C-alpha cells in the first residue's frame, strides 16, 4: 500500500535542483542542499584519487620486492593516500554532505544559521584541495600523513610547505561547518522539537561539531609551526635547533585523535537512522545513544597519548592514557548493543541501506575491539607501527566510517534526488564491499603480529602470501565501490519524481518534505507534537 505522492510525469515539480539554472546559480548558492551537492562532488573526486593511490600501494605490496616504483615514489603514494583520505574525504564525508543536506530539515528549519558561511566553507575546502593537488603535481610529499618531525621539517625532499598549508586551510572549512551546525541545532529547532525529540543523526553531528571546533585549531597551529620551521629553521620541533620532536607528536595527536571521532560519529548517526527505519522501531536506548555520542566527543580529547606509548612518553602518563582509552571505547560498545537491540522483535527489511548498516556494525565491532589491543600498553609496544594498526584503523575508517557514509548515501538518495537506484546492483555492491574489505584487511592483522612494520616499501619474502591475499581483496573491494558509486550515478539518468517522497517509511522531519525538497524545505515551519521515531503503519511503503 503506497502513499507515494509523485506528481504526474508531465508536470515537473519545483525542487531545489531546478529552482535556478546555470553554473553561477550553483557556485553562488546559499541553499544548504546545493552546497551539500557541491561537497558530494568534490569529496567523491578526492575519494577516487585517494583510492587510486591505495590501488598503487596494494599493487606494489603484492610482491615482496619493491619493484613497481622507487622507494621515494612509494613513500609519496602512502602519504598522499593518507592526506587525501583523512582530511579531504573522511572529515567532511558525512557532515559536509549528508549533514549539510539533512540537518536543517531534521530540525524543521529553512536553512542552516549561516548559509553564506556554509558556502565559504566549501570554497575554503576547494582551495585547500587545490594546494594539495598542486603539491602532488609538483612532485608530492613523502612524510606520511602524520608529518613527524624532524623528518618533515628538516629532511624531507617533498613539498611539505605546500601540502601543510593545504591541510591548514582545510581545517577552517571543518571549523565553519561545525560552528554552523552547533548554532543551528541550538537556536533553530522547530517549536515542540525538544533535545530528546531530535533524530539521533542530529545528536551525532552535534557531538562531532564540538570536536571540530575545539580540536581543529590545534592541528592548524601545529602545522603552521611545521611550515615556519621548515621555511625558517626556527627550532620548535628540531633538536638540532633546541626543539623537541615529541612535542610535535603531542600537539599533532591532540587533534588527530579526536579527529577520528569526527570521522566515525556522523556515520554512526546515519547507521542509527537506517537501523531504526528498516526495523520500523525506535532506536533502543535513545538516551544512551544520544549521550554516548557526547561522551565519545568529550573523552576523545583525553586519550591522545596512546599514540605515544613507545615515543618516550612517561610510563605514568601511559597508564592514564591507557585507562582513558578503554573508557572511551565503552560508549561505542553501548551503541553497538543498542543497534542490535533495536532489531529485537522488530520488523526488519534488508534494503540496501540496511545492508550497509549491518556491515558497519560487524566491521566496526572488529575494528573497535582491535583498538582494545592497542590501548593495552604492553601489547601496544609490540603492535604499534605495524600492520596491525593499519588493519585496525581501516576496519573502523573504511569498514566503519566509509560504509556508514555509503549507507547514508543510499538511504537519503531518494530524498536528495527523487530517484531510486537499481536494487539488485546496489545490494551486490554492498556485499562485494563487505567481503572484499575483509579479504583486504583481515590478513593485515596477522601480518602486524608477525612484525611487518607500516610504511614499508618492501618486506621479507615469508610474508608474500598474506600480502598477495590482501592485494587480491583490494581488487574485490575496488570493484564493489565501483558498482556502488556507479549505481548511484546511473540512477541520476532517470527523470526526477521516479519515486515516493518517503519510500522507506521513515519518521524524521526531512522525510515529511517533498523528494527532492523545495528550496525553502518547509513552506510553513512544522510544529512537533510526537516523540521521535513514532512509526505508523500508514507510512510503511513497499519499494519496487
Amino acid at each position, binding site marked *: 500500500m503506497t502513499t507515494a505522492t509523485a506528481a504526474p510525469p508531465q508536470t515537473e515539480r519545483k525542487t531545489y535542483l531546478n529552482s535556478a539554472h546555470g553554473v553561477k546559480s550553483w557556485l553562488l548558492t546559499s541553499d544548504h542542499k546545493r552546497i551539500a551537492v557541491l561537497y558530494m562532488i568534490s569529496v567523491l573526486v578526492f575519494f577516487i584519487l585517494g583510492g587510486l593511490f591505495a590501488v598503487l600501494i596494494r599493487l606494489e605490496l603484492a610482491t615482496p620486492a619493491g619493484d613497481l616504483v622507487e622507494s*621515494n615514489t612509494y613513500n609519496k603514494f602512502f602519504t598522499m593516500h593518507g592526506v587525501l583520505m583523512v582530511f579531504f574525504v573522511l572529515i567532511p564525508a558525512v557532515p559536509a554532505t549528508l549533514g549539510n543536506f539533512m540537518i536543517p530539515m531534521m530540525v524543521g528549519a529553512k536553512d542552516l544559521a549561516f548559509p553564506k558561511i556554509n558556502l565559504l566553507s566549501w570554497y575554503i575546502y576547494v582551495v585547500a584541495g587545490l594546494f594539495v593537488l598542486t603539491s602532488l603535481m609538483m612532485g608530492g610529499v613523502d612524510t606520511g600523513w602524520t608529518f613527524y618531525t624532524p623528518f618533515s621539517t628538516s629532511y624531507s625532499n617533498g613539498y611539505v610547505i605546500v601540502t601543510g598549508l593545504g591541510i591548514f586551510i582545510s581545517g577552517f572549512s571543518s571549523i565553519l561547518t561545525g560552528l554552523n551546525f552547533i548554532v543551528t541545532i541550538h537556536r533553530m529547532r522547530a517549536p515542540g522539537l525538544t533535545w530528546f525529540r531530535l533524530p539521533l543523526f542530529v545528536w551525532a553531528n552535534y557531538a562531532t561539531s564540538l570536536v571540530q571546533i575545539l580540536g581543529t585549531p590545534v592541528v592548524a597551529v601545529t602545522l603552521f609551526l611545521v611550515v615556519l620551521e621548515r621555511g625558517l629553521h626556527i627550532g620548535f620541533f628540531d633538536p638540532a635547533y633546541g626543539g623537541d620532536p615529541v612535542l610535535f607528536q603531542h600537539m599533532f595527536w591532540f587533534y588527530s585523535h579526536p579527529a577520528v571521532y569526527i570521522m566515525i560519529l556522523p556515520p554512526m548517526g546515519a547507521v542509527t537512522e537506517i537501523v531504526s527505519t528498516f526495523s520500523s*522501531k525506535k532506536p533502543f536506548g535513545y538516551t544512551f545513544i544520544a549521550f554516548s555520542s557526547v561522551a565519545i566527543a568529550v573523552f576523545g580529547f583525553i586519550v591522545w597519548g596512546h599514540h605515544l606509548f613507545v615515543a618516550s612518553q612517561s610510563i605514568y602518563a601511559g*597508564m592514564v592514557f591507557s585507562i582513558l582509552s578503554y573508557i572511551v571505547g565503552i560508549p561505542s*560498545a553501548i551503541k553497538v*548493543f543498542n543497534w542490535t537491540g533495536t532489531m529485537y522483535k522488530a520488523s526488519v527489511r534488508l534494503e540496501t541501506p540496511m545492508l550497509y548498516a549491518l556491515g558497519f556494525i560487524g566491521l566496526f565491532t572488529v575494528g573497535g575491539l582491535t583498538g582494545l589491543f592497542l590501548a593495552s600498553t604492553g601489547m601496544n609496544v609490540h603492535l604499534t607501527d605495524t600492520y596491525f594498526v593499519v588493519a585496525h584503523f581501516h576496519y573502523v575508517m573504511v569498514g566503519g566510517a566509509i560504509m556508514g557514509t555509503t549507507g547514508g548515501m543510499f538511504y537519503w538518495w531518494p530524498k536528495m534526488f527523487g530517484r531510486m537506484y537499481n536494487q539488485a546492483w546496489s545490494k551486490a555492491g554492498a556485499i562485494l564491499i563487505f567481503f572484499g574489505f575483509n579479504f583486504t584487511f583481515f590478513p593485515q592483522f596477522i601480518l602486524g603480529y608477525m612484525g611487518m612494520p607500516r610504511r614499508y616499501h618492501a618486506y621479507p619474502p615469508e610474508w608474500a602470501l598474506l600480502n598477495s591475499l590482501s592485494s587480491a581483496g583490494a581488487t574485490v573491494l575496488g570493484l564493489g565501490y565501483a558498482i556502488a558509486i556507479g549505481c548511484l550515478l546511473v540512477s541520476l539518468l532517470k527523470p526526477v519524481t521516479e519515486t515516493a517522497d518517503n519510500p522507506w517509511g521513515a519518521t524524521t522531519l526531512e522525510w515529511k518534505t517533498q523528494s527532492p525538497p523545495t528550496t525553502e524545505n518547509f513552506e510553513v515551519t512544522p510544529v512537533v507534537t510526537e516523540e521521535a521515531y513514532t512509526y505508523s503503519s500508514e507510512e510503511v511503503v513497499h519499494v519496487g
Partner: protein
Amino acid sequence: MGATNFQIFPEAASTIATSVDGLYAYLVIVSAFFSLLVAFLVVFFAVKYRKKDDTIPKPADEHSIGGMILEITWSVIPLGLSMVMFAWGASIYFTESRPPADSLEIFVTGKQWMWKIQHNEGAREINELHIPVNQDIRLTLTSEDVIHDFFVPAFRTKTDVLPGKYTTEWFRPTKIGEYHIFCAEYCGTKHSGMIGTVYVMNQQDYNDWLATGSGEGSMAEQGQALFNQLGCGNCHASQINKENGRCPNLNGLFGTTVDLKDGSRVRADEAYIRESILYPQAKIVAGFDDIMPTFKGLLTEDGLLKVVEYVKSLGPKNGTQTSVPPAPVMTSATEQQAPAQARPAARPAAPGNR
C-alpha cells in the same frame, strides 16, 4: 619462496614475549567472542524478525527497568574485561621499562638508513646485534637525524629512537637463533631497508665473537681519550679540581643526585651528562658559575655515548663498568667533528623552502 615456513605467529624468543603472547591470546578470545556474538545476533534478528506484514513493532520502553539493566550490564561487563586488558598490559609495560640492574649494556645509534651498534668492550657492528642467550640485555639508543624505532618482533619489544635524547630497551633472549630487526618509525627513502639481524648465541660463542671486535678499546676507554683530547681535563681532571675547584667533580658523580643553582635537584644519569656537554648552561650546579663552554658540534652521537660511558665509569659502580687504564688511547678522528660541519645545514639532502 617461503611457503614452507608460512607462519601466523612470530617466534617467541625472549622472556617478555611469552607474557605478551598470553595477553594477545586473551585479547583474541574476548574479541572473537564479542565479534561473533554481535554478528550472530544481527543476522539472527534480521532473519527471525524480518518483516512479515504491515504491523508496526512495539518500541521498547525507554525508561523500563529491564532496559536500564541491559544498558548497565553491557557497559559494566566490557569495562571489567577492559580493565583486565589494561592491568595485564600495564604490568608488562612496567617490566619493559625497568631494565634489571646488572644488564649487559649495548649502545645503538640509528641514522638514515642503518643501525650502528657498539658493545661496551669495543666491538662494533652495523645492522647486526650479537648477544648472549639468557642474559639481560639493555640497549641505549639515540638517533643522529630523524626518529627511528628499533623493533625486534621475536622479542616483542620496540622503542622509538630519538635525536637529541637517549631511549632504552631491554630484553632477555631465551632462544639461540637469528631474528629480524626492523626500523618501525618511518624515516624516509630507505625506511624499509633499515633492517638487520639479531644473533643470539651461547655464552662461549658470544665471548669468542666479542674477542674479534674492535682493537680500539672499550667504550669508556675511547671516551677517556676524547675527554682528554677535547680538554675536559683542564677543569674536570680531579687533580686540577682539588687545586682550584672551578668545576664539579666527576668522580663518583654518575647516578647521584645533584643540587642545582636554582634550588632544584636532578639525577646524574646519561641524559644529564649528555645535556651538560651540549647545553652546559641549562643546568648549573649549585656553588659553581656557568663557565663551561658547549661542545655541541665537536662530538658525534657516537662520541657522546663514549664520553658518557667514561663518566659513568668514574661513578659509583653498579657492576658493569670496566676499569679504565690511566693512559689515553688514540681514537679515530671520526669521533670528533670540525665545528664547521656541526650546523645541520650541512645535511645531505637540503630541502629548500617548499
